[in-house]
């Protein structure tokens, strides 16, 4: 369960290593470790969930569901194969996206704004998200480190928009097409090429700099 054998150089103060140990202890049913894991990660995961599902009450339910799943799935976590935050974030994003599908199926609208300030109009739906950075800004900020910088930079403007709307706001192909006022097939094609380009670029970067990145 623990990855300590494969990562002897990491001190215990390394945040990732500490999270790995917490998840390992959660897998053993230790509630104190579960509480510490929640303390350490819930704000980050709540941020992820709220980005995708801005409905506060639903987001709280999703976060609750996420940690129930974490408690039950901790035994399946393999520290040698996934960074703890990557694992947790994946659980959070899938939970949030599933909740979104249920919410929209009930006829709730979606709130979309590509940039923080929208277009300056008075659409109340846009004001809801006006204080937070838009998905494109998040993408630029995320690209502020390591190999992702160059790889995101190499995407076209349309590809960036598609990736940002899908990743940060959990939009489907159809919703992105609606948002960008583009045919569905065009959007699918942009996204597919964007993902391929990211993969090629990041794979090449990883080959040049071996070792697991955070």
């Amino acid at each position: 369960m623990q990855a300590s054998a494969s990562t002897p150089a990491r001190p215990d103060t390394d945040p990732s290593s500490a999270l790995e140990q917490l998840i390992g202890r959660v897998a053993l049913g230790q509630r104190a470790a579960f509480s510490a894991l929640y303390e350490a990660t819930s704000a980050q995961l709540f941020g992820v969930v709220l980005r995708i599902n801005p409905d506060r009450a639903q987001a709280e339910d999703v976060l609750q569901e996420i940690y129930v799943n974490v408690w039950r799935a901790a035994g399946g976590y393999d520290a040698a194969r996934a960074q703890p935050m990557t694992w947790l974030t994946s659980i959070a994003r899938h939970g949030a996206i599933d909740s979104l599908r249920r919410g929209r199926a009930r006829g709730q609208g979606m709130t979309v704004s590509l940039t923080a300030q929208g277009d300056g109009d008075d659409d109340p739906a846009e004001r809801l998200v006006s204080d937070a950075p838009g998905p494109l800004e998040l993408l630029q900020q995320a690209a502020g480190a390591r190999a992702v910088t160059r790889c995101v930079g190499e995407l076209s403007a349309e590809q960036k928009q598609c990736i940002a709307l899908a990743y940060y706001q959990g939009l489907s192909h159809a919703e992105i097409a609606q948002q960008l006022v583009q045919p569905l097939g065009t959007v699918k094609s942009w996204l597919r090429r964007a993902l391929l380009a990211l993969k090629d670029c990041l794979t090449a970067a990883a080959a040049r700099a071996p070792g697991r990145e955070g």
Partner: protein
Amino acid sequence: MDYGRPDRADRLAAEYVLGTLRGPARRRFVALLPGHPALRDAVRQWQDRLAPLAASIEPVTPPAALWPRIEARLFGTEPAAAPLAWWRRLALWQGATGLTALAAAMLLALVLQQPAVQPPIVIVLGVNPDVPQTVQARFVASLGADGRSLVLEPIDPPPLEATQSLELWAVPPAGAPRSLGIVRADAATTLLRAQLLSDTAALAVSIEPAGGSPSGAPTGPIVSLGKLAL
């Protein structure tokens, strides 16, 4: 859909991780993951690739009330299969029934302060909030001052089939309930037992197979409960 082709598997994994794989396709993909190591590898690689994107999302501290909700959901209730779960919930149940709580408090005072000469002690066995309304029942138990005799009278008896009996239980503060015997649903039952009140925190009535619980512990629904001491 052919998941065996590596390029298609990789594309689906990418769309799944990004979040754009939706609906039936997404559910099919999730269902296939456990049996397809190659798909899982592709998913993990895409999770690694896209993970840095989450770093720019600002953390939002969830409300303080959320953690207790998670704890209650995971640990707050006894497992449904645990045979003794119902009487461990007595403390919670007690708080919700003020009238019985008052009666129990008065009873406790009687038991503690008047050991020598006591009038009969009356205990109301109320409905158990944990069972469906159709089988709820109420009883009144009168305990003799000597602690050896008990008369149980049905007020609202539960519906019983011919193959069922009612059984009365003494519930200790800790440990398993002990049977006080079979009681009638249609008339008062008088029981004579030594030490009826000793180590007894509550009385309970359960529905059992005809003749009583075969195991010595309650097996059927607890239809009525009355707490004896706080």
